[in-house]
Every structure is written in structure tokens, then in C-alpha cells.
């Protein structure tokens, strides 16, 4: 009997392996189709699946019934397994199924039961992973319903809210929140939770790679522009001549004149064309430019008079005054030898 039992076991295991192999082949063939079906209708899957699988499995059973060495036991086992298969939605990875069957066969007690339990475990694991992959739609209501209502002091609440929502404006230097105690819990909780999730979801998650990082382009160094050729000048002149249409009316004529400088700009600016950014002290205190001159003598006297006159001159710019003084300096430098003779 023991020999028989071992033989039976061997044959059983063989059958199970063959059955598993066949099942795995089937599942491999059907996985894309069944995946699609899964995606389309998650809830309705069980009914249609069951029917389809039933049909397929019955066909397979009929095919394999001829090859079977053992009759009723294996068939019963097959049927059991098919029903189990039909009950679950998605077929498992064939490798996993094979591993499960191997584990079951290695264990001493009740191989079929262990195998079925292992497969069930695998299926549950697959389901959960599928759900997570499809994409963790955080059902806020579920989450909130799970959250317990906690009594907080208004100050704490206010502090917490102000910490999270930094956009709240404080009027009169006081927090606005304590005045709104009468509001319902739910709304605020929703708000807080929503904000919490928003804040979280902003920082967490895979990068979408929609926007390319703004490359900090080094500004193109000014290309060395060679002096414009005669042809460029001619071209520019031609363009200017073509684009400069004769004025259509008096206004355009006046505009043109103003651009050319024939007509002054109104309201008349008394300082038009005079751009003196220098302060008054630069105009008046010009002694610092007299450093190169000799301290004593007629030349110094003369230059001081010059500076006195320049300081009272409102018509010259500071640059022109400095040029004036420098001219004198240069002149006296040239005449130095002559002056020393005297």
C-alpha cells in the first residue's frame, strides 16, 4: 500500500506538474487578454471571467482526459483547481505557480490543499500590487472617515492651521481663526486634510519630465563686428531711402522735423541738449585741478583768476572746464624753458 501510495503520489505530482504546466501555458497565452479585461471592468470581471475560463478549462480537460493515466482523482483535482482559478480574477505568473507547486510537493501534508492555499496567497498579493500600480487614488473620504475626531483647543487649532497655511493674512495683528469657532469640524478637517495631501503630493511622486530645465545659456559674448564695409553702408542707405516715405500730412512733417532737430520739442525744455550730471561743487571748487601748477608766482595767480571765472560760468560743462585748465597746463609746460630763462 505504501508503494502504491508513493506511486500514486508520484503520478499525482506528475499530473499536478503537467496540469500546472498546461495551466501555465494557458495562463501565459491568456494574460494579455485577461489583463485587458481586468482593466475594463474590475467589478464585473468575476462573472465573465468565470464563464470564459470555464469554457477554456473544460476544453482543456476534455483534451487531457484522453492522455490521462489516472481517471477520477486527477480529474477531480483538475476541476477543483479550475473552480479555484475561476473564482480569482487574474492568473498568476507561471513561474510563481510552478514554484508554489514545487513547494507544495516538497511539503509532506496534503499537497493539493497547500498548493491551493499558496496560489490563493499569491493571487491576493497580485491583487494588491495591481491596485497599487493602477494608482493609488487616495480616496479622501475613506481616509477622512478613518480619521478620528479630535477635540482641540482653539489656540492649538489656530496655530496648526497658520503653520500649514502660510497665506493667511493677519488683520489687526490677531489670528482670524479663533473667531470662526462656530464652523463645523468637517469642513475644516477636509480643508486641512486636503491641504495636507496637496502639500504632500507636490513634493512626493515621480518626476513627470514635462518641462526641461531652463539651461542657463551663457550669454553670447559680443561678436567682434568688423567695421561695416562700404557695401553695408550703401545697403543701409538704400533701405533708409526706401523706407523713408514722404510725409502724408502736416503732422508727419512736423514729426520728421522734430526727429531731425529742426523743430524743437514742446513743451520747450530749456536744458535740451545739455546733459550735465555733475553736482554744483564740481563746477565751483576747481582748485583740485590746479595741483600740477607751481604754488607761487604769476602763473598761479593767473590760474586762480581763470578758475574764479570758470566757477561763475554756467554755460560750460564740467568737462569743458577741465579741458580749459588742461590746455593752460599744457601751454605752460611747453613754455617752461622759456619761462626759466626769464
Amino acid at each position, binding site marked *: 500500500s505504501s508503494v502504491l501510495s508513493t506511486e500514486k503520489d508520484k503520478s499525482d505530482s506528475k499530473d499536478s506538474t503537467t496540469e500546472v504546466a498546461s495551466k501555465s501555458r494557458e495562463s501565459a497565452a491568456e494574460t494579455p487578454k485577461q489583463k485587458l479585461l481586468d482593466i475594463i471592468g474590475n467589478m464585473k470581471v468575476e462573472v465573465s471571467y468565470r464563464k470564459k475560463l470555464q469554457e477554456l478549462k473544460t476544453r482543456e480537460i476534455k483534451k487531457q482526459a484522453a492522455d490521462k493515466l489516472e481517471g477520477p482523482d486527477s480529474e477531480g483535482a483538475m476541476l477543483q483547481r479550475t473552480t479555484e482559478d475561476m473564482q480569482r480574477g487574474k492568473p498568476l505568473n507561471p513561474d510563481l505557480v510552478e514554484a508554489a507547486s514545487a513547494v507544495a510537493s516538497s511539503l509532506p501534508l496534503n499537497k493539493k490543499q497547500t498548493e491551493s492555499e499558496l496560489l490563493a496567497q499569491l493571487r491576493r498579493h497580485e491583487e494588491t500590487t495591481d491596485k497599487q500600480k493602477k494608482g493609488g487614488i487616495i480616496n479622501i473620504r475613506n481616509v477622512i472617515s478613518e480619521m478620528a475626531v479630535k477635540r482641540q483647543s482653539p489656540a492649538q487649532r489656530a496655530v496648526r492651521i497658520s503653520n500649514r497655511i502660510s497665506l493667511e493674512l493677519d488683520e489687526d495683528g490677531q489670528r482670524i481663526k479663533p473667531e470662526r469657532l462656530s464652523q463645523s469640524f468637517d469642513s475644516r478637517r477636509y480643508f486641512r486634510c486636503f491641504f495636507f495631501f496637496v502639500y504632500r503630493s507636490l513634493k512626493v511622486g515621480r518626476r513627470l519630465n514635462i518641462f526641461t530645465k531652463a539651461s542657463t545659456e551663457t550669454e553670447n559674448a559680443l561678436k567682434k563686428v568688423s567695421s561695416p564695409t562700404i557695401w553695408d553702408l550703401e545697403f543701409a542707405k538704400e533701405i533708409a531711402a526706401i523706407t*523713408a516715405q514722404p510725409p502724408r500730412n502736416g503732422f508727419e512733417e512736423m514729426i520728421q522735423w522734430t526727429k531731425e532737430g529742426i523743430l524743437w520739442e514742446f513743451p520747450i525744455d530749456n536744458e535740451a541738449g545739455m546733459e550735465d550730471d555733475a553736482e554744483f561743487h564740481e563746477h565751483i571748487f576747481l582748485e583740485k585741478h590746479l595741483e600740477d601748477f607751481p604754488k607761487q608766482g604769476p*602763473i598761479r595767480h*593767473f590760474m586762480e583768476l581763470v578758475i574764479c571765472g570758470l566757477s561763475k560760468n554756467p554755460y560750460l560743462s564740467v568737462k569743458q572746464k577741465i579741458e*580749459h585748465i588742461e590746455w593752460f597746463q599744457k601751454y605752460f609746460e611747453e613754455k617752461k624753458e*622759456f619761462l626759466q630763462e626769464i
Partner: protein
Amino acid sequence: MAASALGWALRAARQVLPSPCPRQVRSYYVDWRMLRDVKRRKLAYEYADERLRINAIRKNTILPKELQEVADKEIADLPRDSCPVRIRNRCVLTSRPRGVKRRWRLSRIVFRHFADHAQMSGIQRAMW
């Protein structure tokens, strides 16, 4: 020599403006005297600063006289047309040297002509 001078004078006389101007522009001066006057004005503008400074040295009681004599010589070396004294306020339209009203830069005849045709702004025949 004469030909080159003539050529240069002709070019000067032509005085074509560089920028394309859509209006009608007179491209010649009225006569040669006017042209010479224009040259003198340009040179006077160029040498105005130098002349002023050298004259400041000359018309001086502080600086030594030798220096002033040197300055005299220097100013005499400058081109003759650079002195502003040689500029004559001629009529702009007829180049008439005399009878020119400074405000309008026109000779009396031209002024009268325009005033009678009411082309002078704010000018009216006097009657009192």
C-alpha cells in the same frame, strides 16, 4: 594748380548733403563771397577756444610780458580766416552784405518782399 583749386572750389560750391532729403534743397550757395563767408565761419568755430585762451594770456597784467609777446606771435600764426572779425553777416538769400536785419538774416529788400506777401510771421505794415 589752378585746375585743382577750381575743382576743389566746385566741390565746395556743390555742397551736396549726405543724408537723402525728400524736400527741395538748394545745393549751391548764392555766390562765391557767400561761400568764403561760410568757410570763415567754420574756421572761426574751430579755433574759437584756442583764440580765447591765447587772448586770455595776452590781455593780462599778471603774466610776464615776454610770455604775452610769444602769445601774440602764436595767435598771428593761426589761419587768418579763423578770426571772427572777418565774418560778415550777409543776407541768407541774396548774399547782400549791407542792409541785413540780424533777426531774420535777410536783406531789407527780401524782407520787404516777404512781408508784403504775408510770409513773415508777425510782421505787419506799420501805421500809427
